[in-house]
């Protein structure tokens, strides 16, 4: 633990930290505007494509009666998976008092909120009748895993929002105290309202602290549930490739891989863009690299179980499915997900050099892309091989290939998620200021002294 600083030193140091961590709020250059323009344009195109899909029907996609779930569901599973990183970093690591992870807990929550919010939207975009969405509540049947999914995903979104907001309150109070007159009036008003009159006294902090602890505990079962239930959308069926008992933990392990890789991307962008080299420092990248190796090893273990055991037996239907994955049409994607998404990060990240920010970010990007294709390889090939032969239908019913509007709608989710991340970074500091300052030996008294009784 760092020693306490003298009040003079502490004030100076706090000023510096505050200045650095609010840089993301101030950056308004050409690149920012261009980035926002691109994101908004792509989102508009995506929404337009969805409108077209609603008008014409889901037939504008490559999905048909046999492969009836395609890119949308793969994308949904991917986003649910990514969102699980909020649980790992801002809850489990916090509760285990893993201090190096504290500066990235807000990044993890940003990613969690963007991902789970979009996951909810993607599933509506996959519906044949989105206009009847309310039927889920009006006629909900609790025997269906979809209802469980809707329940836990909404709960997870709410808890994630709270886990984002509660530690933000003291930061909002700091910004309210220090930024008056320096930012647009409306922005100041937002901080003023959202800070809920926080003055930094012990009692107020205690409320936040205890609520946070409770939420961190609560989110563990809920977080595990969202991805377990999502895996049951598949495991609850009788189809070869999905009909397995390890899908719950298999999905959860895979989720941590995707989420860790995603958080590394965001960290790197913030580090470069908002000049936060000393905050998202080499040590954090190094440790995130090690974390990625660890979660990949766990996931590898589940993959070995998932593919090697049935591959050893080659039961009829299961055998057709596995042959398709190992050496058939899906083999290139399958091996890319296994090598790019597991073997590569495990081997390379054991070497210290590759855990430096740039190489790590690049490797994690490959892992993230492989994670997306991994969901695709879980969803699509199984549907291409039903128990009974596919006959008397046109060729495009037999094999799935996504169409352009379908890809546009899928990409929409990515642009919308990036838009949410950008908006959050532009509005709120990307690292919890008070927590970081405290960790640097600055007492709360100093942060809020002018306003204490």
């Amino acid at each position, binding site marked *: 633990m760092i020693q306490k600083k003298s009040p003079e030193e502490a004030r100076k140091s706090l000023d510096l930290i505050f200045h650095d961590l609010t840089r993301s709020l101030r950056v308004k250059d050409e690149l920012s505007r261009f980035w926002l323009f691109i994101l908004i344009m792509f989102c508009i195109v995506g929404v337009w494509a969805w409108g077209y899909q609603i008008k014409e029907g889901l037939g504008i996609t490559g999905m048909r009666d046999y492969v009836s779930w395609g890119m949308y569901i793969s994308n949904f599973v991917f986003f649910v998976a990514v969102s699980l990183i909020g649980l790992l970093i801002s809850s489990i690591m916090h509760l285990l008092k893993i201090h190096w992870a504290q500066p990235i807990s807000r990044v993890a929550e940003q990613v969690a909120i963007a991902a789970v919010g979009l996951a909810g939207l993607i599933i509506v975009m996959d519906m044949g009748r989105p206009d009847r*969405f309310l039927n889920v509540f*009006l006629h909900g049947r609790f025997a269906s895993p979809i209802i469980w999914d809707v329940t836990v995903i909404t709960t997870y979104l709410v808890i994630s929002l709270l886990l984002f907001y509660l530690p933000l309150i003291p930061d909002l109070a700091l910004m309210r105290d220090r930024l008056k007159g320096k930012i647009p009036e409306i922005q100041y008003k937002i901080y003023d309202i959202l800070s809920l009159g926080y003055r930094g006294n012990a009692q107020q902090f205690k409320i936040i602290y205890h609520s946070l602890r409770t939420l961190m505990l609560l989110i563990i079962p809920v977080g595990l549930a969202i991805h377990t239930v999502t895996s049951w*959308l598949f495991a609850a*069926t009788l189809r070869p490739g999905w009909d397995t008992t390890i899908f719950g933990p298999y999905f959860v392990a895979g989720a941590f891989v995707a989420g860790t890789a995603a958080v590394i991307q965001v960290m790197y962008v913030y580090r470069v863009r908002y000049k936060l080299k000393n905050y998202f420092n080499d040590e954090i990248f190094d440790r995130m690299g090690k974390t990625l190796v660890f979660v990949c090893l766990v996931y590898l273990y589940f993959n070995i179980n998932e593919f090697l055991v049935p591959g050893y037996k080659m039961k009829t239907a299961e055998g057709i499915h596995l042959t398709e994955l190992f050496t058939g049409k899906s083999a290139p994607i399958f091996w890319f997900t296994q090598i790019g998404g597991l073997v590569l990060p495990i081997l390379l990240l054991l070497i210290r050099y590759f855990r430096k920010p740039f190489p790590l970010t690049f490797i994690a990007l490959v892992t993230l892309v492989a994670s997306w294709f991994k969901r695709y390889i879980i969803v699509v090939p199984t549907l291409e091989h039903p128990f009974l032969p596919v*006959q008397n239908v046109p060729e495009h019913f037999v094999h799935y290939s996504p169409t352009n509007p379908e890809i546009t709608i899928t990409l929409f989710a990515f642009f919308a998620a990036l838009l949410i991340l950008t908006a959050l970074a532009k509005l709120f500091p990307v690292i919890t200021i008070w927590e970081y300052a405290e960790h640097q030996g600055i007492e709360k008294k100093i942060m809020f002294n002018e306003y204490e009784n």
Partner: protein
Amino acid sequence: MNNANSRRNFLKMAGLTAASAGVAASAGFLSSCNRIEAVEGDRIKLLTSSGELVEVDRASLTPAEIPSLTENQKRGRAGLPGRKWVMVIDLARCRNARKCMEACQTHHQLRPEQHHMNVLQMKDAENTSPYYMPKPCMHCDNPPCTKVCPVNATFKREDGIVLIDNERCIGCRFCIAACPYSARVFNWLEPRDSEKYVGVTYNIEANVPQKKGTISKCLFSADRLRDGKLPSCVSACPNSVYWFGDQNEDAVTNGTTGETVSFSNLIRDNAGYTLLEELGTKPRVYYLPPKGRAFPYQGEIHPS
């Protein structure tokens, strides 16, 4: 069914039960007016439930008694009391005539690539003989599809039929993923001839008019069963492949010959079986093995 009988049925249908018998098309206007003006010699075209376009004198028409949508959905969910429908498909007699598929697509207003009933070309192992296998919905007693439906849009009725309410279906397609028999189809685009059926009251027991963005599948022609008729496919078969009946009465009737036999004897004497029985779905459709076949297998008549 003999000629006189079918004629009587036709008249009854044209006159009385336009919409409830699954008639739509040109009969659609019936639902929009209460009185029909009797003008002698004024003839109109009607589409019967078996898909024939017929002409009838307007004077002989009376307003159709169409159950309201709510009433239709209610009785559609209840099913026919005291019944337990069962189907037996004799694989030895199927020669891939596909009359069942045609009748079914007409009855349920399906596009050519949509099959409630699909005749598959099967070959179980390398050295076994190929055969044709008509495949409807199995109407399982332990249906994987109804279990996963989030809104209770597909459900199991008392009389054994698994039905769909396309006024409620949200189009999530979880049931398609859950069905191991690939029995379900989806309306990916506008259903066939949808412009003709605008304003026609939905008939849950035939799942017509079909709706874009919702599921459809074989319903054992529940609307025809209510009228005391055999399912469309069963009646259409020229080769005595189908037996259909009530398990509670232990009697099944052949759709081609009209012969009625004991269901349990038929299954027992011919080593009847159900499809993928190891999955535990408990189908209500039974198959008789393709043994002592009435015709040679003719290979890939319809490619793919």
